[in-house]
């Protein structure tokens, strides 16, 4: 795998992918172990951005613009998702104090 030209210096693409992997894992673990709904949302954003980083890396390496376009697309969707998620959270906070997502289990039969 050839290196990527970033601001004149060469950096191997695997570094970017490793960083993406670390960020994604951090996000996933955050979603799994944290109870605070806001932190969970932030962790989801982290995962999305890790994926974006991977997409851009491959786009650069393969000289294909589609990867970058797709990253832009993900950002748009992430923005929309954050809006909806935060709106739901705000609504729940209006009704009660929510510290733990496990408290939201009323729909279980």
């Amino acid at each position, binding site marked *: 795998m050839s290196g990527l030209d970033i601001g004149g210096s060469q950096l191997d693409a695997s570094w970017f992918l490793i960083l993406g992997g670390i960020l994604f894992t951090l996000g*996933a673990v955050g*979603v*799994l*172990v944290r*109870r605070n709904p806001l932190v969970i949302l932030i962790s989801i954003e982290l995962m999305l951005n890790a994926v974006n980083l991977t997409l851009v890396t491959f786009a650069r390496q393969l000289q294909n613009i589609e990867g970058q376009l797709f990253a832009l697309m993900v950002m748009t969707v992430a923005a929309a998702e954050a809006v909806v998620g935060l709106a739901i959270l705000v609504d729940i906070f209006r009704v009660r104090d929510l510290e733990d*997502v*496990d408290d*939201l*289990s*009323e*729909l*279980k*039969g």
Partner: protein
Amino acid sequence: MTTLTSSQAISLLVLLFPAAGALLLAGRGWRLPRTFTVIVGPLAVWAAFICSVNLFLNKVNADFTYWTWIKSGAFEVPFNLLVDNLSIFMCLVITGVGGLIVTYSVGYMSHEDDPSYARFFTYMDVFIFSMLLLVLAGNFVFLIVGWAMVGLSSYLLIGFWYQRHSAVVAARKAFVMNVIGDIGMILGAFVLFVSYHATTYSGVFAGITGANGCDSSHLCVFVPANRDSSMLELAAFLLLVGAVAKSAQLPLHAWLPDAMEGPTPVSALIHAATMVTAGVYLIGRMHPIYDVAVYAHAAVAIIGAVTALFAATIAIVQTDIKRVLAYSTMSQIGYMFLAVGIGAYSAGFFHLLSHAFFKALLFMAAGNVIHSMHDEQDMRKYGGLWRQMRPTSISFLVGSLSLVGVIPFVGFFSKEQILGSAFSKPDDGLALAVWGVGFVTALVTGLYTGRMWWLAFAGTPSPQRPVEHPHEAPPVMLIPVGILAVLATVGGLIQTRALGFGPSQVSDFLASAVGKVGWEGGSSEVVVTFVTMVLAAALFLAARRMRPWSAALPWAQRLLEHKYYFDEIYAAVFVRPLDATAGLLLRDVEKPVIDGAVIETGALATAGAGGLSLTQSGYFRNYVLVFVGGALLAAAVVLVRANS
């Protein structure tokens, strides 16, 4: 479709009027004023009567095929009506006597509330339609449809007062016994179809007489090569099962006395004048078969003769006036079977006509009495009605004398023609034997009819009588009774063969359909005829002094009161074993096996769902964990595959 000729259209209308009446009454009748029912119910029957008269006057004699109803390979059923002299004769009896009885019902059923009133006339019109379909059918499929539908209407009308347990039980009994007959009929039709490759009467009869198109069909492999009559005997016996069940002959007779649970006009129409004579019609209609199938034909005569005597003896001890008439009906139909069984078809049909007159008359006159006695049917509690219900009493006397066979009433001419034909049939020991039974039956008939008359109408009023001063029936009930009384008095003059001279209108009319009686009676026949009549009439008079036999012949009294223990035998042989088997199956098969399988399947589903529902914890993180775990697993699979 080609245009209909007027005769074809009128033949269809005979069927369509009662059908339309039934549909009108079933759909809207009970919501409209009672006048609607009163007009539509009888009018439908009278309209069919007018159409029948038109067919009669125009001397229609044809097999009308309207269209092909079913066609499937070799099996072809045309929509055809056989309008020959026999079916016109039957149509006239059904719609004529039926019209009188339905009109009579307007008065008899007047105590019913509006929905029941409309229901009654709906059923009556359905019955008339079914019966007309039965006699007009030109093929076995229609015959079976009509045959089953009259059984259904009979069931509905016997159980008309469905709040009474006994009526429901009687209706069910009648239906079950009729279905046994239906099965026999259907199997008989199958045998004929397999043998002759035709569903129409004309096709089958053409096959029997020789010129059949059977040889080209693969279905004919079942026919014996030498074309002996064994298949015909089989078919004839199976059809006889149907005839016996419908006409309440031995051994499928037990339903008719119980059928008296129905309203009296029903007993008059269905269980005396028309439906129960369908068996006689069937054998007359199938006479080309019975002429060849000599054993089945002899069985018809024997069953008829035995039933005639059997039922007449039971009638001696019955106390319910309608049951006496029911047993008398069985007995008289036995005479008809006897007649058609020895080949005197037109004599049988003349008795069918005459019996329709006098037995409908007797039932309707008895209905007048029952109506005025607030539904009391025990004759011992009547007495002395002669003074208080004169028109009804006269009508009943006319019917009784006709039943006994006193000259000049219609019963004399028809019954004596049957007995005379049996007596004078040359070289036939069986005919002579059944004549002997018929002769004894004629005497017993005089006895039980006399007992009924003297007990109910003569003498002084019984102290147990429910009504001290009974009212005579209203005109709408008396006029039909009067018309039938006139017919029962002078009707015999259309055929006086029993006297050895005079007109023979019925035989001449039916000759084209069932043939003439093939032998002539001599002067000895006339002598025997008069001896029979005088003895029967003497017994009618002697019955006045009759007392119950319990003192002299207690065992005979008991035997007859239990109707020769037929109900008990059937209960022991069929009903109780079936009940026991059903109970056993319920306990050992239904509950443990079938119910068990169903219940266990349900329990399994419930348990499975309970187990699966544990995965639905309701906690967000659990779902995410499963999701992530799934994703990791998928990734692992992809990696392993890529590297292998």
